[in-house]
């Protein structure tokens, strides 16, 4: 028997060398596949993580949006806004109308007292006849024993702030005194 043929160690070494070569060949082929699978798994994991993150984010948002107290608060704001719009229009309209009412002169005792005071300066008596808010017209009868007193009184009236304009149409004499019907337009601030 050849001595060489019975060297088991050598045989073992040779067989191991051959196995290593086969393993290296397979490993070489498996690595790219393994890498590809790893990339797929990582990619899948990354995407799934993104989905989970977004789902959580969306859940938080939906929780807020569907929260009954938040919905009630929003409904209350909507209702209040609608009511406030209505009230604002009402307040503005009422304000305008109140201002319009207040814009009219007040042909009251104050105005009459001032006219009487002016008349007494010229020995003229006055008696109120009427007033019309539409035109602002205020009329009265002026009476005096002297016609010149009435003329002076009319001139004084034309300078007063109470009246916007003064007009009269002649006079009558009843044997004792002169009588003039005076028509004025009251100033907007009269009597206030």
């Amino acid at each position, binding site marked *: 028997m050849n001595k060489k043929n019975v060297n088991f160690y050598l045989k073992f070494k040779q067989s191991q060398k051959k196995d290593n070569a086969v393993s290296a060949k397979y490993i070489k082929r498996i690595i790219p596949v393994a890498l590809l699978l790893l990339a797929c798994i990582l990619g899948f994991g990354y995407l799934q993580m993104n989905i989970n993150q977004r789902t959580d984010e969306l859940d938080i948002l939906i929780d807020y949006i569907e929260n009954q107290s938040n919905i009630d*608060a929003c409904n209350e704001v909507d209702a209040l806004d609608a009511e406030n719009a209505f009230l604002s229009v009402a307040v503005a309209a009422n304000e305008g109308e109140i201002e319009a009412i207040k814009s009219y002169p007040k042909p009251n005792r104050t105005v009459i007292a001032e006219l009487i005071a002016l008349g007494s300066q010229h020995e003229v008596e006055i008696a109120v006849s009427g007033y019309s*808010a539409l035109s602002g017209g205020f009329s009265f009868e002026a009476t005096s024993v002297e016609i010149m007193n009435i003329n002076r009184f009319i001139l004084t009236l034309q300078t007063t702030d109470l009246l916007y304009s003064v007009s009269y149409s002649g006079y009558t004499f009843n044997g004792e005194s002169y009588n003039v019907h005076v028509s004025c337009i009251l100033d907007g601030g009269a009597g206030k």
Partner: protein
Amino acid sequence: MKMTFKLTKRDVFLIYVIIFVLVGFIFIRYFMTPMLDEISALDLEIDNAEVEQFDMQSKIAMLPASRKTNEDLKKQLTEQMIEFYPLMESYDIDKLFSSFLLERGVLVTEFSVSAIPVKAAIVPYMATEPTETTGSSLYTSYISINIEGDYETLLDLTSTLIDDYPSLCVTSYTIGREIRSVDGSGNAPEEEYTTLSLGLDFYMTGTPEEYEALK
């Protein structure tokens, strides 16, 4: 004859590449694309939800201010309307005036009031166009009264109505004197009577619902 099928190194490499590409394609087509689509859909939903949340947050943040505005406007409206009478029927207006005039000891010879109030359209003094009435809660009844009494009492009465009743507007008055017999027959002695013709706008306030109920 025996058929043998032997793969060359090149064939193996090609199959290997095909499998590689196929795995990649399957992953992209059946995993990645749907997931990316889902991410896009979620992003869109998140965007919409964020917009909605922002709107809600803005509204909720506005709530205290809206409540305050509402309170202020209601207070303002109440203050504006405090001087005006509530909407009332013509017979209630009649009652109100009758008692007022009786207290002053004058004789009312004629009283008329519009049956149904109308929406107030007030023309400011010396203007030609009325104010905007949309939304206004003011209504007017027109009143006409003829009264007899002494001159000073009638002047006082007119002045009181002008000064002390902001819900009234004296639109006209005429003070006249007429001489007639005491009993009106013409045989009795004659006396001088002072007469006052008053035209008034009586302003009331109410909601459109109250006005509809009155009509």
